[in-house]
């Protein structure tokens, strides 16, 4: 038994099955990311004044990552076009670059995550707020490289003012705080506030998509490449479909980048 239209498009719809399938899937992905995106806006609008950190992320790094992803997107289409021209070697070259870009993207993202996990905020018993990267933490002492911030305008607002990354860069200094003076200490992980929460959720989910997409592209590229010999048209379709997914992942990032980094 053969399923019709797995390779050739159906006349009246002009589509082969997998292409329709991936677009349907992407439609549901739009709703998935759309819901998170809506949540982002709702949380942001609902945040107390000064509690929503702005410009917390490192823009140059984010820019590099954006460029990495854009590059991977163009190599995917160029790879597909190479296949259309029966140039398998060229296709393989392009898709290898794609995969390297995926690695690059995930690597850079991991570095950014690491940066947030080592970034701490400390509130002391007398109500002072300190913010900075953790240098040392033991039974007696916590050492941060950062600032004391003026929490009267809101904790996040203070961070913005004193931010080490944003345009108004201030030099860091080392701060020592006695553990016994600490009322609350926590890093900039998801639990820090609703901004970091949605930041990690959005970028985490997006990162999983990058990894998933890279796995699929890699599978088609290496273990699954035999099909190019037996059924080249179907193989090209597969490349196209995985490419559609990859572009979608890129598309999501195109919105995530300004929204998370720049606003």
């Amino acid at each position, binding site marked *: 038994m053969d399923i019709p239209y797995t390779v*050739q*498009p159906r006349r009246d*719809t*002009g*589509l082969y099955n997998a292409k*329709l399938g991936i*677009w*349907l899937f992407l*439609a549901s992905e*739009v*709703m998935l990311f*759309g*819901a998170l*995106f*809506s949540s982002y*806006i*709702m949380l942001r*609008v*609902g945040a*107390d*004044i000064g509690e929503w950190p702005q410009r917390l992320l490192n*823009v140059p790094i984010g*820019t590099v990552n*954006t*460029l990495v992803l*854009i*590059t991977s*997107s*163009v190599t*995917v*289409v*160029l790879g597909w*076009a190479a296949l*259309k*021209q029966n140039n398998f070697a060229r296709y393989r070259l392009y898709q290898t670059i794609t995969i390297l870009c995926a690695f690059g993207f995930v690597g850079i993202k991991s570095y950014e995550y690491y940066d947030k996990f080592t970034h701490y905020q400390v509130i002391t018993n007398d109500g002072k707020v300190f913010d900075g990267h953790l240098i040392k933490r033991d039974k007696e002492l916590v050492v941060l490289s950062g600032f004391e911030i003026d929490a009267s305008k809101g904790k996040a607002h203070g961070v913005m003012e004193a931010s080490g990354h944003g*345009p108004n860069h201030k030099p860091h200094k080392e701060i020592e705080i006695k553990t016994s003076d600490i009322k609350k200490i926590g890093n900039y992980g998801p639990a820090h506030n609703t901004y970091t929460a949605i930041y990690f959720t959005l970028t985490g989910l997006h990162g999983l998509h990058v990894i998933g997409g890279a796995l699929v592209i890699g599978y088609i590229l290496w273990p699954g490449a035999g099909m190019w010999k037996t059924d080249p*048209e179907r193989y*090209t379709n597969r490349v196209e479909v995985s*490419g*559609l997914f990859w*572009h*979608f992942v*890129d*598309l999501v990032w*195109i*919105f995530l*980048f*300004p*929204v998370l*980094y*720049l*606003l």
Partner: protein
Amino acid sequence: MSDHHSHEDIEAVKRKYIIIFLALIVGTVFTVGAYFLEIHSVALTVALALFIASIKAFLVAGYFMHLMDEKKMIYGILASTVFFFIGLMGLTIWAMHDMPPTTQFH
């Protein structure tokens, strides 16, 4: 594929892809540039960033994903998706703001 590209076609298409790639880079540079210029109106920054992002999205979806010459069926599916997405976001935001007076604490 029904829409068989000849080799010359493909060359033209590849050139198009490269141009779009460059356009995407330029868009990114603009967005980041606007950020470092520090336009002080938040609304303007937001509008600008989202405007550029929309153009970039249009380029990726329209050309890399071949939406520009896709079939009616796909348009139908995507149009209803966009409709529902706007419903989800718009109505939720509206609902959160249309509450009786004094409901919000601050």
